[in-house]
């Protein structure tokens, strides 16, 4: 599995903090950022073309433009084996259910914080 992580999140602070915590935990992942759904799709395709298919995508739900559900659906169309985790404040809602239906493998609630996220990444990448 590629230790390539794509983070699709519109809030820059969130992007920054996720990267800091991942680096701090020494996960040694190659991290790419996208700040909208459309950018996330393009980035995924681009990385695939470069032979750097993301081992995991961290997906926000509420974003300007297309939301996390549609972004997930489109990425799944590009790569049916894509692994996507939702990291969202909209856990336990219809929205998060729709994200799972669209192809996401897990929802990580925001209240679990970055340490919670890092823990899930370690588990996923087997680190």
């Amino acid at each position: 599995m590629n230790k390539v992580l794509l983070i699709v999140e519109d809030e820059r602070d969130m992007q920054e903090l996720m990267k800091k915590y991942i680096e701090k935990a020494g996960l040694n992942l190659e991290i790419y950022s996208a700040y909208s759904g459309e950018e996330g799709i393009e980035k995924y395709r681009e990385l695939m073309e470069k032979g750097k298919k993301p081992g995991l995508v961290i997906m926000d739900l509420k974003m300007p433009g297309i939301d996390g559900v549609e972004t997930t659906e489109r990425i799944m169309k590009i790569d049916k084996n894509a692994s996507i985790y939702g990291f969202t404040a909209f856990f336990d809602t219809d929205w998060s259910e729709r994200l799972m239906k669209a192809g996401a493998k897990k929802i990580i609630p925001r209240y679990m914080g970055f340490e919670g996220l890092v823990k899930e990444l370690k588990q996923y990448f087997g680190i």
Partner: protein
Amino acid sequence: MISFLSIAMLTPLVILSVVNGKWGLYKQFFEESPIGITVTEENGIISFANKKFAEICGYKLSEIIGEHFTKFVAEEDRKKMEDFHKKRMSGKDAPSEYEYRCLRKDGKIRYIKIKMIKLPENRTLACKIDVTEEREMKELFERIAATSLMGIFIYQNGHIVYMNKSAEEITGYSLEEMKNINYWEIVAEDYREIVKERGSQREKGMKIKPDVYELPFYSKNGALRWGIFSFNNIMYRGKPAAIAIAVDITEIKKMKKEVKESREKYRILVEMSQEGICMDDEDEKIVFLNDAFAHSLGYEKEELFGKKIFDFVYAEDREKLEKEIKKRKEGTPGRYEIRFVAKNGEVKTFIVSSTALYREGKFAGSLSVNLDITERKRAEEKIIESEALYRAITEHSPNGIFMIKGGKFVFVNSKFLQLTGREMKEISRIDYMDLVYNEDRKLIYDFVDKAVKGKEISTPEFRYISVEGIRWGVLNGSLIDYKGEKAFLGVLTDITEIKEIHEKEKRFIERISHYFFNPICIAKGYIQLAKENVGEEDIMLEKAKVAIERVENVVKNIVKEGEIYE
């Protein structure tokens, strides 16, 4: 009775007297004989005639003696008798005993039975008996017998010797056939011996009683028939015999039996009838009633016989009954509802079908069939009350109630009309699926299909089409029997407002999640990093972190449980 028996006895006497020349000795005896006697010479001239012959012919003796015998014979028989005479005189055979018609002086005809005796010297002695009346009686009997509808049998020595046409028709046998059997053989087995015994006694001239009775007998085709027979003793052809006159009463007996059975049938019908049957006379007095009617009023029949029907009619209905009876007297039958008061004081309602009875063309009362509908009336009242209750519930229900049969609405309440924004005449025309939002039709179709098949079903949320737009509803219902057919009775609960509230609530929660968790998460993230940079011992950052986590916990409880607590 004068007969040729006496002539036969006289014959040797006559011959002797003529032969021995002792005519004079017996002349007076011949002259006074009750039999007409003539002596005719070879040339046909009457040389002797007695008073009786003169009486038969209506001539004086002096007008007879010396006349040719044909003068006293009717023209139709003259030639025949002349031929007989000539043959006899020439020694040839000629009938010695026959009947002929005598021509009287007054031109009338008498029937004469004649016996000829050949005397010496070619004389002929003729003995004549006037059988006109006997013949007339015989003809009369034959005509009566021929035209009679009653069967006439004469039997002698165990055999029928005479039967008229009706007797042949009744038995199916001809006289010839009957002659070959004993008459009692056609009598039904149980009666044979007695018929044989009585018949034998009658044939011997004994008077047997009873002489009129009914008898069963078999006709030639084997059918058992009944006759009423009247018997008497007679003399037939000089010997004792018996006569039986019979009337075939098979059909009458059959009809009587049928009438009896029919009466019995009607009696049972009347007695078994659940409907009260009552007959009253022209004075409204009860003359007949069945148990059902008496018992429905709590009486025994005997208690009501002779009582006036008005005695049992509820006071408020008496005028009505008077009007009805007036109609009966005018010949109009009627069907009406009336109340009677039972023995225990209970007021009972009956439906009465009544018709007038007539005797010799005059009104003789009424026959009525009375159906006790008290319980039915009570049930109807309960139904009316129940219907009113259900109507009130239905009309005031906050839910739409409807009934579908054959895909069409056969009933909707006002709430249903209000929810769909349609009027009754419009609703009754459309198919129920026209009200269901296109994407939810399969859902509703499956729901109704399961209901029709009697399967357990969950109530679906679905969208229906109101005039004002798409609305949300929940459907409950089941299959019922309606006017002998299956129908779907459904309840539509509109949940549009509830759904909207839920949506608002959901959006609110989502916003809380978004607007609180993200900044909290960011704040927590940075505080943690700041703490690591400034050292774990920084108490103020730790307190800020704890405060943020408290807020985060509260927001988490709001989002997850809808409750505000730490």
